[in-house]
């Protein structure tokens, strides 16, 4: 089995590293600390790679939709365009407006990025201990959502600290939007939690194990929650039709109008990191996480984290398709949609799921 092969390789590396540490006389405490650091480095590298991939995909998908080619010049089919842009942005001058609050102006993007990346630590990438996740929290899904709301603080601080009226308007819009849609998003997640009977992402994945039919997307009583999650997560990632905080044609660039260089880069990368986290959570909640569609068949040879990423990428491509097709909502329409449309739908979803669980259709139950 490919999974076991990957796991064995990782185990061999771990054992080798532990032996090496013992040989050098490093106390076991430090070994575990080093293992933690290695895990975090792994996560950050992974996130950055994923972000670069997502940005590249965005350019290619939008090019396809708009009957253009997208990046083609740097590297084969433009593959190195995004890494080159990331390098370029590091060389750019960092401009802070004279009247901006310099500390806040700096904290905003960094905070936003850190919080967006932190969400990755609880993602179960694969079965097994090491490849699974950096930390196993029994409230994983709660942590991800809490971190995702915290990112808002970075936007608010950055937008307000810029001392620009457009930035302020953008930040205010972001706060209003995120607070409204987080309610809907959490209601969707509550349904999944009721179904799985656990807040742990690993347990939610396990609840969907066995066969393709066990995935939440194919359980009819989860469909209201699925619809809710799809819409609310699009709003959460601030993409068209919900890109009101940026709204290029209205607010110039919204909360990051006054940012340049790597500070802008942090906002930009953080946004894609956040997008990816949302897609990963969507995969875990509804698409069976790392599990292959046909367990026990030849599909098992593909390692779990490949399945997880493939599913998440599929979700991301769909959000890109939506983004490049639809116009933008207006701020009042957005709020109306959230509170009058999605929140009631959330209660319906909870009711449906609750009934299904009570009738014994669902798994865990609370």
């Amino acid at each position, binding site marked *: 089995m490919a999974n076991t092969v990957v796991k064995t390789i990782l185990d061999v590396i771990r054992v080798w590293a532990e032996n090496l540490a013992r040989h050098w006389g490093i106390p076991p405490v430090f070994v575990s600390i080093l293992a933690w650091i290695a895990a975090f480095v792994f996560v950050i590298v992974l996130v950055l790679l994923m972000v670069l991939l997502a940005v590249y995909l965005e350019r290619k998908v*939008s090019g396809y*939709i*708009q*009957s*253009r080619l997208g990046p083609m010049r740097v590297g084969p089919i433009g593959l190195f365009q995004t890494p080159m842009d990331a390098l370029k942005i590091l060389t750019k001058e960092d401009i802070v407006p004279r009247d901006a609050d310099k500390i806040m102006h700096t904290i905003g993007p960094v905070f936003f990025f850190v919080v967006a990346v932190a969400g990755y630590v609880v993602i179960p990438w694969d079965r097994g201990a090491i490849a699974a996740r950096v930390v196993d929290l029994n409230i994983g899904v709660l942590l991800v959502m809490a971190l995702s709301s915290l990112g808002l603080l970075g936007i608010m601080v950055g937008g307000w600290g810029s001392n620009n*009226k*457009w930035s302020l*308007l953008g930040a205010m*819009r972001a706060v209003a939007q995120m607070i409204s849609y987080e309610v809907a998003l959490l209601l969707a997640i509550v349904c999944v939690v009721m179904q799985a009977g656990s807040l742990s992402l690993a347990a939610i994945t396990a609840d969907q194990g066995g066969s393709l039919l066990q995935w939440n997307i194919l359980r009819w009583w989860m469909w209201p929650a699925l619809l809710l999650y799809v819409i609310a997560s699009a709003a959460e990632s601030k993409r*068209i*039709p919900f*890109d009101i905080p940026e*709204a*290029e*044609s*209205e*607010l*110039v660039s919204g909360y990051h109008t006054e940012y340049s260089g790597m500070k802008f880069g942090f906002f930009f990368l953080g946004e894609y990191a956040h997008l990816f986290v949302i897609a990963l959570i969507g995969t875990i909640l509804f698409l069976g996480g790392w599990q292959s569609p046909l367990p026990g068949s030849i599909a098992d040879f593909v390692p779990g984290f490949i399945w997880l990423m493939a599913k998440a990428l599929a979700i991301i491509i769909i959000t890109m398709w939506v983004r*490049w*097709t*639809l*116009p*933008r*909502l*207006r*701020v*009042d*329409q957005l709020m109306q949609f959230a509170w009058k449309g999605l929140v009631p739908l959330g209660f319906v979803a909870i009711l449906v799921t609750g009934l299904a669980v009570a009738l014994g259709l669902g798994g865990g139950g609370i």
Partner: protein
Amino acid sequence: MSETTVAGLTTEEMIVNVGPQHPSTHGVLRFVVTLDGERVNECVSHIGYLHSSLEKIAETLRYEQYITNTDRFDYLNGLGNELCYVQAVEKLLGIEPPLRTRFIRTVMAELKRISSHLVYLGCYGNDIGAVTIFLHAFRERELLMDIFEAVTGGRLLYNYLRIGGLRNDLPTGFGDQVHRFLDHFPRRLTEMTDLLTENRIFIGRTRGVGMLTAEQALSYGVTGPSLRGCGVPYDLRKLRPYAAYDQVEFDIPTFPEGDCLSRHLVRMEEMRQSLRIVRQLLDKMPDGEIQAEVPRRLRPEAGEVYERVESPRGELGCYLVSDGSDKPYRMHWRGPSFYNLQVLPEMVRGGLVADFIATLGSLDPVAPDIDR
């Protein structure tokens, strides 16, 4: 700065500059907008950033030399501006251009109208947040650009019309090229309608937004699709047919609501009507001379003339005063963008910031057309 109190909280109005550098001002335009939160309380437009003295320049140029300047103010309607100017001078001189010339001028003006409306469509999509329509509209516009290039040699600035005639006759294969476009374009137009006009979000963003009543529009001198979007069937091509518009059948689309959506629908329908006009003109295109007898030195008798045509944005007028010399004594242009923009503060008051952008885009102003 006035202060308003909402539920015991004192809030201040915020004054923001929209432009001169802003993604949605379609050129260099500036508005000082007073906001109460997201709501627009007051909007003052500041123009003059693109003033280019085109009227004053006319006093230093001979009549036939000025044609090239007309392409430059409303750059989306170059051939239409040339038509207006050339007709004004012809009226002053009492010259009647040959029938074939009139036909060709009309075909080019109508193709230019489609191309201008395509730019509007793309930019308006961008204003509303639908980015893709921009590239789709510009892809179709490229076919028109190829036609203009084949006929005039230029893509943006043509210098094609002459007083009493044209610079050159149509190239061989022109009919086929235009027919290919006429056959291909309606399908694309339907596709673009599906993509943008029939989108629920788009309708939600434009219906009932930027309301303009017919009385307001008439009292401010609003013309063109913006006026026809208030239900007033005012179109110079029909009311006072010039060039070859008396030879063709077409309708004037009007929508009575006076909101952004009806202005948008007028333009979408006008593209279809323009296709109709071009098709008829191509079928009836007469042979013959393209240049009337014109004296070598143009010295109109002292007097004045006002000539107007229907540009894609509304009534484009050219006022010429002659003192008997070979240069105009005074020239004035009535630019539709200038008159249409005057009514903007009335339309956006009380709306949201997003409505302001949607309304501005729906007036389809071209910045150099506002001040010259």
